[in-house]
């Protein structure tokens, strides 16, 4: 019986794949034959000569720095907002606030960064400011939830000991709970920062600054050689971040 169901599932998957190709009416023959592949090759060839003039390199470096700044500040803002929302979401202030905070966190998290960026560009105008806010909004949803879970799992004894000694609520939180929580919060935030650098480099497609905006404008102006430099810069940024976070993880997380 189990085998029959599994077979049916596999058949359903194959049918779904065939149906998707049918629905999209992908004209593969036109894509590959009929000069389609040649056309694509000609288009790709225009990317083979990246523009390495000093002026353009400087502009790209500025864009890369802007991307880094957007991701860093977006993540920092998100850490602050996430922690603020995580306290009620972990049930520190009673259940009505808890469910409200959870709902808010879910809503923040469910909308992808790019949609947030399109919204913030409408609200705050073009430029890196909109991108930073978009990253902060989405990431605070993600971090808030992770922080809330970390808070719920943190040991209560140190804080309780401070309270019993006569310390205030704030002192108990800062000196009893936070020291235990800190490494975990930092690890989550670093992980999200890594993600955000990647996101920040594409948020520019909707006008939110950084490398993405450069890529979008250069491609729209058919300046493929300039665009290819931007793509290389993105690639380098991503690879550097990967290597950096690998080193950080091996040094600080596993130890």
């Amino acid at each position, binding site marked *: 019986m189990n085998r029959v169901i599994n077979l049916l599932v596999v058949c359903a998957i194959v049918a779904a*794949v065939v149906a998707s190709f049918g629905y999209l009416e992908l004209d593969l023959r036109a894509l590959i034959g009929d000069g389609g592949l040649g*056309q694509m090759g000609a288009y790709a060839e225009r990317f083979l000569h990246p523009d390495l003039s000093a002026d353009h390199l400087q502009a790209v470096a500025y864009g890369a720095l802007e991307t880094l*700044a957007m991701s860093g500040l977006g993540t920092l803002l998100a850490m602050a907002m996430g922690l603020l929302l995580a306290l009620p979401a972990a049930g520190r202030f009673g259940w009505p606030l808890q469910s409200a905070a959870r709902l808010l966190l879910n809503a923040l998290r469910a909308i992808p960064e790019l949609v947030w960026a399109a919204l913030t560009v409408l609200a705050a105008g073009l430029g890196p400011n909109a991108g*930073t806010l978009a990253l902060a909004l989405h990431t605070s949803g993600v971090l808030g939830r992770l922080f809330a879970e970390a808070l719920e799992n943190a040991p209560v004894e140190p804080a309780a000991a401070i309270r019993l000694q006569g310390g205030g609520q704030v002192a108990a939180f800062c000196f009893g709970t936070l020291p235990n929580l800190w490494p975990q919060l930092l690890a989550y935030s670093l992980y999200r920062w890594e993600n955000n650098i990647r996101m920040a480099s594409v948020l520019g497609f909707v006008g939110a600054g950084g490398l993405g905006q450069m890529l979008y404008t250069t491609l729209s102006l058919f300046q493929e050689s300039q665009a290819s430099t931007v793509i290389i810069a993105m690639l380098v940024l991503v690879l550097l971040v990967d290597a950096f976070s690998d080193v950080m993880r091996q040094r600080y997380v596993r130890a």
Partner: protein
Amino acid sequence: MARARDPAALPRLLLTLLAVALLWPGLQLSELNPGVLLQAENRKQIATFASAFWPPAHDAEFIKLLYEATLQTLAVATAGMAFALVLAIPTSLLASRALSLRAASRGGRAGVWSRLLRMPVRGLLIFLRSVPEIVWALLFVRAVGLGPTAGVLAIAITYSGMLGKVYAEIFESVDQRPAHALLQAGSGRLTAFFYGILPSAVAEVVSYTVYRWECAIRASVVMGFVGAGGLGQQIDLSMRMFAGAEVASILLAFFGLVLLADLLSRFLRGRLA
């Protein structure tokens, strides 16, 4: 005594100052100013846009459009994954050390040559997955025109890079002894793969593939923003027309789709893995 309450106060203060000094240029670069959201003019604009969110657009014509866009998003993700698998399976076999004849006879350590020969394949996979999928989509929109074809190709390329790398690693992480025994007994590499490695790797491979399909759905929504069809393109169009009600119902459709994909992927993983 009252002054020395927190012995770590000074270093903490210095660290904070250092962090602020490092972040200050970033603040300038990112032009961060949440205050603009509160300016009277912008506030009015946000308010009018957001007040149009309720009720979400639900006339029959728009629902039909939404249904088509949702189906298109699903189809783009599925077709893209199918292409990605076609590319990822051979490359993962080429990139994986698990089927190296030399490794089989040397207790799992590949020789210098077999490592060097695998380098280009690994490099290709890194390149494919390091360029974000939306950049590929942007490029393909210019190469093959607006529409879902660009989305399918973008997903195929990025995800073949990810799947190829992860498959290769899964093949290397399972017990190598059956495959080595088969290889040393003189079987072909494909036979060794099918009878020595696949049986112990299949569960992980299936579960990762289903998870990636779920990610592909989310990615194909986002890729619509650069003109690759589906729900994303609808959101982009509606936002440009300041049609808040339409944006709201598209977002609702998107949540529904993600939820559905989540449930379906959990079911498939439980069933097949």
